[in-house]
């Protein structure tokens, strides 16, 4: 009973978090969503750190910032993280205008949404692990 409950929980989390990714998971690659999530989790954390560093350096290299944020936006949108993606778009506008203050403020929003997403991803991965242990 516990096992079924966990598996159902995983399935419904997957559906609500990643609608397109969920469609891609199948029997030939049953861990696909988990793999992508793990990959994104690690990669996005790295990108956030790079952006933070770039924002702290003086003078600010807006080109580099835009590069990082562009990549971050690309992968966030690909896994379906809409809120993070939207904050990235807002950030890039400040970046294009070379508005340092705007960038710093906007980045706080990006970090916040990313932190919320990370927590959801952590819970998802934890539940997946638990479910596989009871399998």
């Amino acid at each position: 009973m516990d096992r079924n409950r966990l598996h159902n929980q995983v399935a419904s989390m997957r559906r609500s978090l990643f609608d397109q990714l969920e469609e891609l998971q199948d029997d030939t690659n049953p861990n696909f969503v988990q793999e992508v999530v793990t990959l994104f989790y690690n990669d996005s954390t790295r990108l956030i750190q790079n952006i933070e560093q770039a924002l702290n350096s003086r003078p600010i290299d807006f080109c580099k910032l835009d590069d990082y944020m562009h990549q971050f936006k690309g992968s966030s949108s690909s896994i379906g993280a809409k809120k993070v993606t939207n904050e990235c778009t807002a950030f890039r506008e400040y970046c294009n205008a070379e508005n340092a203050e705007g960038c710093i403020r906007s980045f706080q929003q990006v970090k916040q949404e990313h932190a919320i997403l990370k927590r959801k991803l952590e819970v998802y991965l934890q539940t997946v692990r638990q479910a596989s242990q009871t399998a």
Partner: protein
Amino acid sequence: MNPSNGNGSMSTASSSGAWDGRDQFPAGLRVLVVDDDPTCLMIFEKMLKACLYQVTKCNKAETALSVLREHKNEFDIVISDVHMPDMDGFELLKHITSEMDLPVILISADARKQVVMEGVTYGACDYLIKPVRIETLKNIWQHVVRKKARNTV
């Protein structure tokens, strides 16, 4: 040939020459996908495989170019991200259009009109905005057919 980003999960393109996939059309379409972002590359590969295409993935434009040069007749279409550190998608596109007769689709999270315009002007047969949905990829075979039809005129 090992252009993938090191995790060994790469499918090699067939060496039988031109793809004409009569019966299972468009299954078996030989696609080279290039993106330096590992998350995107992984998702693309999965989506393309779900379309029953034969997928080779690369995380560097330079590598993609040498793969294409060495295995000229083993690909039907190239899908490339625009924003890459070593060589960007536009440069890759220019090389491919001048050296080979392959359709190239550009992909980017950048939806700005001037960038899309540049891609199209340089010869991209399509420009897709991330996130790309699998339904879009199911239709890319038309670019291969269209190019072949133009070439035989």
